[in-house]
């Protein structure tokens, strides 16, 4: 289908974005890569009056590594993250996750900020952000707020973003020499959203496609043997069924991923 009619504006400063959001309230939507928003417009699942294209704010794109963290601007595309040598070096978990996001043509436009703000429960970045204890940076009329990823993702497509706020960046702690991470995903076809996936960093096992938001499997992680951990997983997760997989199937698959990650983490150096 075709998108309904809307007005379009492409401001060049964040202040202009705040002003537009204030003036148009619920009727306005931010447009970043458009790779989730435009499908929803085409399917007429949403009908905003105004799209505010934020891709002109180039200062919010780009990757900056410091001694202990990597700051990725909200407008950085999946393709830029995929190509970045700094991400490969300092954030191996994110580097492994990104090639699972959709397909090359979509990765060329989709952005980190769009994915975090959308908070799809089967998306890769939110799970990585929780596993790595990233900080999400948001800005509004009243200044900047910094929110721990675990607090940022609140529920199904629901975040801590307040009306009028924009995600501007995410900051990920640099992986240390002794840190180990594993990224695993099961999907029907390459590039599809996950049936179930696991972003694991040391003992932080974060499942996606496993609930309304990224799920930190704390009980499983507290066990000393794989067998106990697999058994404890049922107390951490209650995955919702999808069109093809029952909740029990997904829980089983989560156990399979946990086992693979456990074995990799306990043998790799």
């Amino acid at each position, binding site marked *: 289908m*075709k*998108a309904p009619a*809307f007005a379009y504006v492409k401001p060049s400063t964040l202040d202009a974005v705040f002003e537009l959001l204030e003036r148009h309230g619920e009727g306005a939507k931010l447009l970043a890569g458009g*790779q989730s928003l435009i499908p929803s417009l085409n399917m007429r699942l949403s009908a905003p009056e105004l799209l505010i294209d934020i891709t002109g704010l180039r200062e919010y794109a780009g990757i900056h590594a410091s001694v202990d963290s990597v700051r990725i601007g909200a407008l950085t595309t999946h393709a830029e993250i995929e190509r970045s040598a700094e991400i490969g070096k300092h954030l191996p978990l994110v580097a492994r996750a990104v090639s699972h996001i959709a*397909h*090359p*043509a979509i990765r*060329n*436009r989709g952005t980190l900020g769009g994915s975090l703000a959308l908070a799809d429960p089967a998306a890769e970045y939110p799970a990585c952000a929780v596993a790595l204890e990233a900080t999400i940076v948001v800005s509004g009329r009243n200044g900047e707020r910094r929110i721990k990823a675990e607090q940022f993702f609140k529920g199904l497509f629901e975040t801590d973003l307040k009306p009028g706020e924009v995600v501007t960046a995410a900051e990920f702690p640099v992986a240390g020499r002794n840190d180990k991470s594993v990224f695993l995903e099961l999907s029907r076809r390459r*590039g599809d959203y996950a049936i179930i996936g696991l972003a694991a960093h040391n003992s932080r096992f974060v499942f996606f496609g496993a609930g309304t938001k990224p799920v930190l499997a704390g009980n499983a992680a507290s066990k000393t043997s794989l067998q106990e951990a697999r058994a404890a997983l049922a107390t951490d997760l209650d995955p919702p069924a999808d069109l093809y997989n029952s909740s029990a199937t997904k829980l089983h698959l989560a156990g399979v991923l946990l086992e693979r990650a456990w074995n990799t983490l306990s043998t790799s150096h």
Partner: protein
Amino acid sequence: MEHALDITLTVNGTPVSRRVEARQHLVDFLREELGLTGSHVGCEHGVCGACTVRVDGEIVRGCLMLAVQANGCKVDTIEGLSDSKEVGELQRAFHERNSLQCGFCTPGMLMAARDLQLKNPAASREQIRAHLSGNYCRCTGYQAIVDAIEEVLHGKS
């Protein structure tokens, strides 16, 4: 607030200026305003890849980008790549290996294959498949498409 905007872009090397509705997708603009019907419209929500075009050197979904967003950009379509012979080798291999039946997916397949040829000319068979993962073909079963691309990349026949 504007529902229609003036845009200027370069399409297959030719400068174009038009007034477009904000809601119009790039692929509809190319097909309906410019008569470039080589880029196809399948699903209109980013799944099939039939609408693949190149914007500033990178492949994108023509159905997931608005025409207004292409303001100031350099857009290349299958017509441009065909006329310049940029995809000539790929077209020949697709033809020889029966890599198309109805041909609906072919323009998008060629755009994605050319992108791979530019970015990773040494791509393995598995990498070819990964690069084409966002392009659906409902006829061929993909085997012949992957064969044709492999032949062009590696000179196999």
